């Protein structure tokens, strides 16, 4: 039975008043491995922003000119064949990755990576760049496209990430947006964004599977959609499996043919980049045709290769079967059988591969749906969410954490703190103890993954909790709290419970950028970091001051009679002064005036509390009395 009296929901002020200077629009961005898309939604109608030729897709390819400026998109893609040493593609595969991760990705990679700690760096056009900086260049290009077309400043965005992206890759994406001068309203999982677009467009209801095979990542999400609620039941995937792998498989096949003809050959990174373009063409050819002829040329030797349907299917099969296996695991996690799934939505260009459609259809016992362009559906969903976050919406997106989060314990075993598929946001605490007498510090190592041993999972962060008071072994109680926010990002905190010693802990990300690196990049970037920071602080002070004023106005409206005329006039004077400082540019003045308002309303606040308590004791609150009796 639901008790009415407890559901005291008030309007959280969901229709924000438009303020002067607020003419910016928030966009949705699909930052893809192969292509990126930017879209905007106005009054519930999403629109993909296209170039003059009507192309919505911006190839996620960046070329660096001799002066250091970045060229993004189709032009960069053309330069790939002419000046491969200045061009980089598929950089998303490197987001939040260390050197060891990159080396473990199978096949010949078109990257020249630099040895070093933390996040991998790429050598390109004579420079060493992080994947974050390169992604920021792509995001800047998308921001410019949006601003040119919309004739508005674009400073806020919803950016999509693969559901299976781990914490390091999510953080890297957010950092890239910051470098590009974009405020990330929310990171949304790609399949969830697709479901949002699909559900709202087709009014789908029931349990749906979203099969998202992009250039470099694979996700499968099972969602329940009904009446404006999009609830992710379970998600799974592989952050290193995508259409790129089909290209690599085809390339290996061609190279094997060449080896038979010319013997062992040495290929440069630039040779690989060009050869991959051919392999990609071959793959795309296989969508419509059953056979195609292709030519490779390097080391001044030309070779001709024929790719037939059966060869391609054979090459693709292991990759497709891996995705099918993941689908099965997710179905099992969600306690759902294939015939209970009402529809399967295909997302990502790689779902055009005929073998993919065939095998997905077989598993789910139905023809998959591709009503909305699989290349654009994610950006469309992101734009709808951007509008929902800024303008308001009745729809609700409830997502889950894709991977279990845990902590290293004795013997290199991982103790899970938050299991996968837990609805977010979530916070969970676990207690640990010391194992030596007088132990004053404890190393805390946060990990992500499903396996039992530390080295089989992904290291997220390490830090040391210091200042534990000396106690006998096992007496201290260290409470470690894991919090995952709505962006899927993790924060870890630790405190010693018995003494209440809580320690501020700095998390050093294992594969991220440090704060110093980030600050340096912001300084170096075209964005005027300092000015930007000032503007941001001023905006925040204004927002806060408006909130404070609204709060006082509400209080005056309801309890104004608790003040005499003089007192009321005094508060009004301060309110007016605060209003004037908000109109100005001095954030310190705004803060000072807010503090004054707080001081001068303390007596008022005290009287309101006294009144509230008095009412509670005498029970004159008729509305509450009635509610209580009704229940």
């Amino acid at each position: 039975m639901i008790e009415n009296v407890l559901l005291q929901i008030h309007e959280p002020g969901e229709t924000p008043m438009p303020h002067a200077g607020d003419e910016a629009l928030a966009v949705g961005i699909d930052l893809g491995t192969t292509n990126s898309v930017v879209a905007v939604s106005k009054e519930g109608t999403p629109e993909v922003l296209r170039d003059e030729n009507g192309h919505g897709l911006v190839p996620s390819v960046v070329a660096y000119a001799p002066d250091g400026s970045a060229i993004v998109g189709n032009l960069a893609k053309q330069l790939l064949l002419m000046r491969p040493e200045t061009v980089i593609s598929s950089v998303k595969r490197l987001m939040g990755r260390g050197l060891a991760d990159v080396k473990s990705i199978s096949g010949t990679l078109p990257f020249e990576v630099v040895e070093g700690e933390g996040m991998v760096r790429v050598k390109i056009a004579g420079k060493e760049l992080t994947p974050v900086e390169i992604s920021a260049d792509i995001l800047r290009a998308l921001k410019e496209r949006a601003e040119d077309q919309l004739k508005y400043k674009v400073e806020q965005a919803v950016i999509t990430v693969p559901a299976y992206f781990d914490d390091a890759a999510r953080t890297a994406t957010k950092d890239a947006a910051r470098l590009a001068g974009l405020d990330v309203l929310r990171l949304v999982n790609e399949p969830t964004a697709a479901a949002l677009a699909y559900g709202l467009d087709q009014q789908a209801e029931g349990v749906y599977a979203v099969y998202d095979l992009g250039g470099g990542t694979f996700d499968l999400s099972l969602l329940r959609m009904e009446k404006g609620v999009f609830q992710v039941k379970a998600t799974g995937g592989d952050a290193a499996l995508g259409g790129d792998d089909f290209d690599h498989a085809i390339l290996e096949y061609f190279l094997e043919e060449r080896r038979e003809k010319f013997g062992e050959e040495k290929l440069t990174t630039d040779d690989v980049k060009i050869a991959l373009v051919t392999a990609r063409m071959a793959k795309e050819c296989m969508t419509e045709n059953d056979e195609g002829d292709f030519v490779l040329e390097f080391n001044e030797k030309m070779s001709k290769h024929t790719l037939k349907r059966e060869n391609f299917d054979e090459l693709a099969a292991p990759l497709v079967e891996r995705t099918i296996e993941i689908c099965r695991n997710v179905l099992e996690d969600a306690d759902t059988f294939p015939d209970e799934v009402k529809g399967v939505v295909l997302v990502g260009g790689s779902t055009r591969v005929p073998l993919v459609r065939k095998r997905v259809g077989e598993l789910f016992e139905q023809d998959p749906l591709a009503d909305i362009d699989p290349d654009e559906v994610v950006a469309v969903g992101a734009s709808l969410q951007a509008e929902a976050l800024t303008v308001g919406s009745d729809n609700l997106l409830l997502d889950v954490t894709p991977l279990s989060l845990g902590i290293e314990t004795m013997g290199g075993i991982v103790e899970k703190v938050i299991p996968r598929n837990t609805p977010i946001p979530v916070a969970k605490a676990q207690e640990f103890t010391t194992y030596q007498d007088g132990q004053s510090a404890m190393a805390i190592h946060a990990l992500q993954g499903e396996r039992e041993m530390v080295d089989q999972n992904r290291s997220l962060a390490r830090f040391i909790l210091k200042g534990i008071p000396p106690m006998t072994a096992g007496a201290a109680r260290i409470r470690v709290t894991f919090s995952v926010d709505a962006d899927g990002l993790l924060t870890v905190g630790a405190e010693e419970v018995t003494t209440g010693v809580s320690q501020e802990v700095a998390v050093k990300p294992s594969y991220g950028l440090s704060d110093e690196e980030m600050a340096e990049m912001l300084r170096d970037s075209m964005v005027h970091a300092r000015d930007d920071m000032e503007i941001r602080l001023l905006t925040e002070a204004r927002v806060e001051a408006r909130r404070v004023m609204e709060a006082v106005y509400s209080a005056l409206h309801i309890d104004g009679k608790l003040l005499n005329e003089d007192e009321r006039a005094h508060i009004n004077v301060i309110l007016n002064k605060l209003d004037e400082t908000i109109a100005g540019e001095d954030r310190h003045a705004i803060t000072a005036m807010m503090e004054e308002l707080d001081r001068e309303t303390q007596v008022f606040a005290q009287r309101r509390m006294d009144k509230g308590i008095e009412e509670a004791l005498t029970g004159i609150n008729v509305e509450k009395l009635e509610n209580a009796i009704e229940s």
Partner: protein
Amino acid sequence: MDAQSSNMTLRNDHSGLHPCWSCKGPVAEADLFCETCHAVQPPGHIDHFTRLGLHQVYDVDVDGLERTYFELQRHLHPDRFAKKTPKEKSLSQQQAVSLNEAFETLKDPLLRADYLLQVLGEDGISHDHTVNDPALLMEAMETREALMEADSVDAVNGLTTKARRDVRDCVKSIAAAFAEQKLNEARKLALRLKYLTKLLEETRQHKARLVLK
């Protein structure tokens, strides 16, 4: 509801009034938003049942519970606070976290039983790890053997149906035990439910292996 208990409700509702962080006016522990300035409040120190508008009873209408959960999330989820101040964003996240925790606990019959026992001042079922109910142990062994031997989907389906029915009956018995204040009995039944839930999970996995291969 009799006069005495409605008084109780009223008093509970108003105990521990504290000032709203935003406008300093009085708010109650369970309030989500300030009545005066409508600012979101930190999650109150209230139990999961209260948070989801329920009495502390075991028998819960899960569909109704879910509707309440969605409705509350519609107001409290961080997506509703994207344009708000950092303080309000952080409070909304805390509220959504508490709400998720309450819902995840109460929608699950086993977690709910365990939680209710603790709310009522009893030990939860994870308190002791050994099951010393010989009848339950015997039943567990026999069923597991039957499952191991099941090599067709039909055979597993038979076991699944039985396990489902057992779960349903067990949940009903737990509700009855709680209703009659027989907390030891409820605890014993909850331990049985724990075993049955695990069994049902195993039959699912077994079936999935047979169906999907």
